[in-house]
């Protein structure tokens, strides 16, 4: 049963030059079949050119209870946004 299989997080690179993006997760008994399941589940419609799978148990997550102290201080720091620069048209994917 899939509950006996570990969970793997799936990341897809949609085309060369772009970063891998998290798209979901699959159950699989090992890394190789996790890649196969990710391929069959998430790239059936030409979504990607490269796949990563990572054991979900290896993901270290921040504590939601700490969201206030971790993230709210960034709210009032508008000077950290690079919005005061003109980006040349030739620069893509920003």
């Amino acid at each position, binding site marked *: *049963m*899939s509950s006996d*299989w570990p969970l793997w997080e799936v990341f897809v690179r949609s085309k060369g030059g772009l970063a891998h993006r998290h798209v979901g997760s*699959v*159950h*699989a*008994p*090992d890394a*190789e*079949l996790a890649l*196969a*399941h990710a391929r*069959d*589940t998430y790239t*059936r419609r030409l979504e990607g050119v490269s796949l990563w799978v990572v054991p979900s148990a290896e993901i270290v997550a921040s504590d939601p209870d700490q969201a206030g102290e971790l993230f709210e201080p960034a709210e009032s720091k508008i000077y950290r946004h690079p919005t005061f620069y003109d980006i040349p048209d030739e620069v893509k994917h920003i």
Partner: protein
Amino acid sequence: MTVRSPAKAGAQGVATAALARSWAPAFAGEQLDPRTDFLLRIGDDALILGQRVGEWCGHGPVLEVDISLANLALDQIGQATLLLGEAGDGDQLAFHRDVLDFRNCLLVEQPNGDFAQTMARHLLYTTWQHLLLQRLQESSDQFLREFAHKAVKEIAYHRELASDWTIRLGDGTEESARRMAEGLDWMWRFVPELFEVDEGLQAAIDAGIAPDPRGFEDEYRAAIAAVLEQAQLEAPADQRPILGGRRGHHSEHLGHLLAVMQFLPRTYPDATW
């Protein structure tokens, strides 16, 4: 496990399909040209295997495997669409031929059984299919060359996935190893047919249309042996081979498969969707 002899059960399958409706069989008694004959052989293989694997849809042991099996089925159906469309009217050939007119090998029509049995069939067939498609890229026939060039990539994945599962189940738990061995036992008798060269195939080989399967039998045997070794499984003992699918002598299983697959277009010939 009890193994039924498809050879003995053949007559029953014919009766089942005949019940469907008395359509004029597309090719009954007709001498086919070697190209059409070969297109039907590999087109019917893909169609019947696709329908078989498609039977898993909604019944897979886990969601991920269900999707994986549906993908495999659709790859085969897609190839069948191209091949039968080249041989004639694809829909007519798929849905309005009777069991005696199907040219597929006996291996692909064997029942799914459990997941291990399905993977045993997929390993034994798609390893052969992959070796065939590699050589078909050199065919004298342009359509078949182009078809093989596209299809070989799909089937490389089928072969790899079936090998991966065979190894995991064989080298898994006591139960998974037993099931995998039983699945291979069931399918093993149908392997020699894949390498049989009869008059019809010989004509296609002579014309440069089809590769001679005997040319890659050693490679096939070695490839399967390598997978079984990794899977810690013994190759089943060679038994009396069962032949005849290419000439329309099918096991009873094909009649039941066709009854389900052909029911709708035969009952409602004008149905569209």
